C-alpha cells in the first residue's frame, strides 16, 4: 500500500510534545470512561477528611485547622497518584506489553513520563477539586486565597518536583518489579504523618522541640511537605507556617531541578542496565 500523504518529520521538541499529549490522553479520557472510578476516587477521600474535621471541631480547634485538613486531603490525591500511578507505571507498562513499544519509538523517554505525569495530574486534580468543594459545601470551610501569585508558584513547583520524584521512582520500580511495591506501602501512611497532611508540620516543633524541627526538615525532601505548608500559608497566613513562604518556594524550585535531573539519569541508567541484563521487556520480573 502507498501512503498518499507523506509528512515531514517534526522537530525534536514538537515530536516530544505530541508524545506527551498522546500518552496523557488515556488518563485524561479515562476519567470520563469509568464513572465508577470518579465516584470511588472522590467519595472515600471525603470520608477520610470528614473524620479529621469532626475531631478538630469536637476539640474546638482554631477554624483554620479545618482548612488545613481540606488542603491536606486534596493533596493526598496527588501523593497517592505519584506513589501508585506514576512510580508503578513503567512496571505496569512492562506487564501490559507497552513498554517495549515505548522503547522502540524514536522519542525521549522523559516525554513518555511527562505524558503519564500530565495525565495523572489531571485525574488527581479532579479528585482534589472535589475534595475542596466537599470541604466548602458540606463542611462549611471558608477558603480565602491571600497570596494568589505565591500560591500559583508553590503549586506549580510542588507538582513538578513531586512528579519528578515519581518519574525517578518509576525507573526503580521497573528494575525491582514487585519488590518496589513495599516501598509504596512504606511511603503511604508514614508520609501522611511526617509531611503533615492533616496538621501543619510546625506542630512537630511544639511536640518535640528541636528534634521536631529537624524531623520536618527531613520530611521536606518529599516536595509535598513544603508544598502543603506553603499552600496553607497562602490561604491562612504565616501563623502556623514552617518556613517563610519565599524560602519554601526556593526550596521547591531546587527540589524540582534535583528530581528532574535524577529522573532523567535514573531512567537512562536503568534503561541501559535493563538492556544489558535483558530485563527491559521480560514480564514477571
Amino acid at each position: 500500500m502507498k501512503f498518499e500523504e507523506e509528512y515531514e518529520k517534526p522537530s525534536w521538541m514538537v515530536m516530544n510534545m505530541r508524545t506527551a499529549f498522546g500518552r496523557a490522553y488515556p488518563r485524561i479520557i479515562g476519567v470520563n470512561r469509568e464513572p465508577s472510578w470518579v465516584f470511588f476516587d472522590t467519595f472515600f477521600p471525603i470520608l477520610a477528611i470528614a473524620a479529621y474535621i469532626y475531631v478538630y471541631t469536637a476539640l474546638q480547634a482554631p477554624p483554620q485547622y479545618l482548612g488545613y485538613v481540606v488542603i491536606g486531603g486534596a493533596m493526598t490525591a496527588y501523593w497517592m497518584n505519584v506513589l501508585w500511578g506514576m512510580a508503578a507505571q513503567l512496571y505496569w507498562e512492562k506487564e501490559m506489553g507497552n513498554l517495549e513499544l515505548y522503547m522502540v519509538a524514536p522519542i525521549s523517554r522523559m516525554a513518555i513520563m511527562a505524558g503519564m505525569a500530565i495525565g495523572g495530574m489531571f485525574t488527581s486534580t479532579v479528585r482534589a477539586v472535589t475534595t475542596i468543594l466537599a470541604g466548602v459545601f458540606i463542611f462549611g470551610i471558608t477558603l480565602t486565597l491571600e497570596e494568589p501569585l505565591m500560591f500559583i508558584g508553590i503549586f506549580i513547583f510542588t507538582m513538578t518536583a513531586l512528579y519528578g520524584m515519581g518519574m525517578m521512582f518509576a525507573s526503580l520500580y521497573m528494575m525491582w518489579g514487585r519488590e518496589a511495591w513495599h516501598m509504596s506501602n512504606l511511603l503511604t501512611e508514614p508520609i501522611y504523618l511526617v509531611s503533615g497532611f492533616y496538621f501543619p508540620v510546625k506542630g512537630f516543633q511544639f511536640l518535640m522541640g528541636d528534634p521536631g524541627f529537624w524531623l520536618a526538615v527531613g520530611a521536606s525532601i518529599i516536595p509535598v511537605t513544603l508544598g502543603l505548608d506553603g499552600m496553607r500559608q497562602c490561604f491562612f497566613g504565616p501563623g502556623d507556617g514552617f518556613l517563610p513562604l519565599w524560602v519554601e518556594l526556593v526550596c521547591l524550585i531546587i527540589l524540582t531541578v534535583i528530581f528532574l535531573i535524577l529522573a532523567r539519569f535514573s531512567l537512562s541508567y536503568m534503561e541501559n542496565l535493563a538492556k544489558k541484563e535483558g530485563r527491559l521487556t521480560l514480564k514477571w520480573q
Partner: protein
Amino acid sequence: MTKYAVETSDLCRDFKVRQVKGESKKSTVHALENANIQIKEGELFGLLGPNGAGKTTLIKILCTLLLPSSGTAKVMGHDVNTHCQDIRQKINMVSGGETSGYGLLTVRENLWMFSQFYGMPSKLAKRRIDNMLEIMDLSDKKDAKVRTLSTGQRQKANMIRGFMTDPDLIFLDEPTLGLDVNASRLIRDFIHKWMKDKPSRTVLLTTHYMVEAEELCDRVAIIDNGKVLACDTPHNLKKLISKESALKLQIKQIADVKPFESIPGVRNFSFKHDPTTGTTDLKFILEDEAIVADIISEIPKCGSKIISVEKTEPTLEDVFVALVGRGLHGDE
C-alpha cells in the same frame, strides 16, 4: 553496491539464569551464537526456528531493546550499540499475541496515541488510521474499546499500529500466531502488498509456520539453539535435500515389511497398517529415484498389490528436519 537493511557479524547474546529458584549460582545460556545475517533493502526475510531458537532475541537486539554480548549488528547502516535513536526513526515492530495499548480506549484512539509517538500530525494520523482500518477489514470496530476485541481483531489493530508509521524496516515476530485461517490470510496478503507497493521496504519476519515462510519470504534463515544453520531462498534450501526422493505407497496389507528395509539405497523407511481398510502405507526416503523400480518389484514378491503411488517433493519442513534433526515443534 548492495545496501543492507540489517547486517550482523558474529553476533552473540548470553543470558545469565538461575537454574533453581532461590539459588544464587547462575548459569549462562547462549541465546545467540555468532549469528551472521545480511538482509538486503527491499527484502522480505524470514527467520525460521523452534521455540527458544533465538529468533526473538535477534529481533530485540535489532530493535535496540537488548544489547549484544559480543559481535556487531547494524540496522539501516547504524550500529545498535551506539545509534539507537537513528535506528528507531526507521523501524517499527509487531509481535504475535501482543496486548499493547489501553483497554478503555477505542481502537482508533489507541492507534492515534501510538501515532503520536512518531510525531505524526494528528489529522493525518486519523485519516491514515481510517484508511488502514478499512484495508484490514476492521472499520466496524474503530469505535469499539480495545478490551472487547477478539484475538484476530486485536492482531489486525497491532498490524496497523506497526505499519501506519510507514517504517523502512519492520520486524514482525510471529504476526499470525494463534490466528484463524482467514485472519492469517488477510495479514499475509497485507504484508505482501505492502512490500510490493514500495520496493525499498524491508521486512524481517519470524514464524513457526513453514507455509508462511515459503509463501512470503524472499530468503529464509533457519536458526536453532542460537545458531544460523542455513540461509538462502526457499527454493535453494529445498535443493539442499532434493537429491533425495520421497516415495509414498499404499498397498494391500502385508504382515512382513522387512524385505523393504534391506533394499539398497533406501535411506529411511516407515510403515503404518490400517486394519479398517486392510492396507499398509509405506514411506521411503531414497538416495536415488532409480530405486523406485526395485521397491515396486518387491511388492508382488511379498504377496501384495499396489493401490496408490505418490512421489513427494521436499518441503521447507523437510529441509528444517534435515538441518535441525527434529520438527519445528520438537516432537517429530
